């Protein structure tokens, strides 16, 4: 079995089929987008899809927004290369939904309108808090966008079968990656500017069905290959990896024990704890997830949508376990790293191997690869659209309308600014993505989670539950958490000083961990507390209004 067929006879077929399937998806979603644009008349339509979605629809859309390239390509890749450690991501990403369900979703739905800042600024002075929230929203979304676009770049090189020295349409692998990133960027800009929240939501729902379908088919095929015996699959994966039983235990990627170097071991274990805490606390601070709660009519529907989301996301992460170990067993670590150093192409490579096995030779492999690759592209497009919408909404509603215009902007102007912002955000994300191509996408997303958990979550929880919290506290919490997280990442081995860094040829790193969460998240909470107690500002009336509205839904939009 040849794991990389794209350059062989089947390659042309896979290429044409993928491009065809992908164009079909693009055509369908663009049609939805145009239809949605006709239904989008007010600001509420643009920002919140008219608050007309059902719990099930929004649950699927949340799944579509959340199960990103990181989940599909990244986690499968980490499991395929490092075994059990990839499972840590799945667990963290899932358990995190309990924070959103129990503490945030319903209260936010009841008291906010369009953006995360609506809740943060509810009882505060508007301009400083909204500015901070907009900065934080954009930073988190850009980190997350990078991850998705890097995934798209990795995927295209596999699909087009471009290896060093070969070309496609006159493009070498690097040019093709850049071209893909630009194309994905252009599409997400169209979805958001034309379709707004309605269009984006439907794109996410369609994608969720495709992704669940694709992952289910692959899982069934993997399990069928091992007579539906999980132990046999794990055994084969461990054997193929060449690492034996250690492949099925934690410790190959995170918390690595280096004999004779206790300090390095200590840092590695701290990095694991840091990742763990960032994953579980990040979700409820992700702006593109939070604004999804505004698309349903009531808090009760918001709760239902989170329940659906937990069901679908949990099921999906169970499937990724089979995909990752399946890729390790059937494709093998070496074939995966040859294609993509970070393992991002493990899932599509597995599809190719399964297709060849079950549906006959190169053509079968090419076909299944094409289908799964098209699903992966759909996945990426749906997520980047959600991210772009979240950041452009925040620029327009928080920064433009409330900070610059001091609440005097018309709905029309606001939505127009949101559309222009989507364009700018898209352009910035495209430019940055080109520099991040060596990083594993699940890992990049983990950084976005750390930034969200540090910069946003403390302010959200304090706002909703702490009576004394005030403007100064909110500003301190957001900037303190955000800056510490971003600075620690900047001085970490992720950015410089390691062979896998963004800038491998430079070294300015002094922070030993690759995930900043264990420092920056408590620091964000601490800053919020200090900022609050050093200011005398208190507004009991506004807190009463926030508390009553958030708990009862009175006066909800």
């Amino acid at each position: 079995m040849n794991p990389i067929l794209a350059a062989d006879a089947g390659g042309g077929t896979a290429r044409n089929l993928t491009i065809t399937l992908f164009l079909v998806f693009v055509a369908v979603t663009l049609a939805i987008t145009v239809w949605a644009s006709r239904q989008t008349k007010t600001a509420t339509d643009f920002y919140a899809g008219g608050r007309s979605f059902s719990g099930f629809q929004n649950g699927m859309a949340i799944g579509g927004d959340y199960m990103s390239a990181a989940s599909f390509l990244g986690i499968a890749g980490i499991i395929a290369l490092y075994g059990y450690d990839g499972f840590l991501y799945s667990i963290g990403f899932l358990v995190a939904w309990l924070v959103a369900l129990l503490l945030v979703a319903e209260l936010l739905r009841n008291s906010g309108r369009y953006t995360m800042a609506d809740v943060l600024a509810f009882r505060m002075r508007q301009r400083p808090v909204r500015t901070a929230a907009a900065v934080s929203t954009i930073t988190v979304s850009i980190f997350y966008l990078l991850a998705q676009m890097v995934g798209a770049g990795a995927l295209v090189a596999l699909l087009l079968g471009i290896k060093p020295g070969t070309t496609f349409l006159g493009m070498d692998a690097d040019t093709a990656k850049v071209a893909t990133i630009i194309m994905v960027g252009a599409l997400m800009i169209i979805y958001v500017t034309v379709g707004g929240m309605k269009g984006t939501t439907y794109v996410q729902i369609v994608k969720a069905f495709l992704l669940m379908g694709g992952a289910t088919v692959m899982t069934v095929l993997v399990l069928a290959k091992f007579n539906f015996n999980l132990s046999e699959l794990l055994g084969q994966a461990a054997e193929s990896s060449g690492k034996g039983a250690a492949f099925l235990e934690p410790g190959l990627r995170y918390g690595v024990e280096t004999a004779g170097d206790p300090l390095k071991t200590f840092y590695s274990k701290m990095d694991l704890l840091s990742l763990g805490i960032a994953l579980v606390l990040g979700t409820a601070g992700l702006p593109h997830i939070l604004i999804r709660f505004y698309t349903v009519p009531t808090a009760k529907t918001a709760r239902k949508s989170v329940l659906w989301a937990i069901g679908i996301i949990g099921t999906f992460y169970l499937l990724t376990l089979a995909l990752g170990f399946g890729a390790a067993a059937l494709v093998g670590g070496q074939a995966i790293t040859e294609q993509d150093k970070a393992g991002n192409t493990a899932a599509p490579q597995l599809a190719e191997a399964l297709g060849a096995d079950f549906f006959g030779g190169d053509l079968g492999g090419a076909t299944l690869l094409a289908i799964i690759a098209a699903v992966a592209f759909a996945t990426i497009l749906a997520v980047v659209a959600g991210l772009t919408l979240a950041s452009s909404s925040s620029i327009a509603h928080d920064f433009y309308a409330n900070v610059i215009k001091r609440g005097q902007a018309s709905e029309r102007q606001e939505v127009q600014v949101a559309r222009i912002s989507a364009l700018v955000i898209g352009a910035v994300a495209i430019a940055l993505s080109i520099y991040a191509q060596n990083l594993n996408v699940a890992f990049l997303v983990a950084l976005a989670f750390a930034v969200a958990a540090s910069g946003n979550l403390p302010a959200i929880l304090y706002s909703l539950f702490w009576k004394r919290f005030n403007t100064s506290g909110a500003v301190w919490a957001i900037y303190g958490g955000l800056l510490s997280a971003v600075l620690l990442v900047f001085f970490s081995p992720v950015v410089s000083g390691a062979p896998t860094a963004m800038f491998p040829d430079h070294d300015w790193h002094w922070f030993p961990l690759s995930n900043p969460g264990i420092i920056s998240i408590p620091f964000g909470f601490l800053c919020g507390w200090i900022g609050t107690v050093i200011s005398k500002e208190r507004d009991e009336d506004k807190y009463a209004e926030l508390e009553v509205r958030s708990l009862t839904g009175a006066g909800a939009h």
Partner: protein
Amino acid sequence: MSTDTPASAPTGSAAERYLAVQRSDEFAGLRRALRGFVFPMTVAFFLWYALYVILSAYARDFMGTKLVGNINVALIFGLLQFVSTFLIAWLYSRYADRKIDPIADRIRAEMGEVNGESDSRG
């Protein structure tokens, strides 16, 4: 009006209504019902998850213990995190339907007229 009025206090009567509701026994009961469930549950699932992460970092031998075939403690522990997440989500939804929604609905109904006033702001 589409946007928030910067730092505006609610108009006098509305502000008093919200304060009055907030101080009512019924609202205190709602707050207690909500916090009494979500705070302990958050602590519980967080500790349970932290235990899993810490064992993954520091108790490798235990996590590597094989139970059936190639299935080890680490895998089962991980799967139990899925089970607990589904279970807590289900318990909360049942609890909220029975104990939280009815009180919230009642208070909201009693506040009918405040809704009208507050609709004009963000």
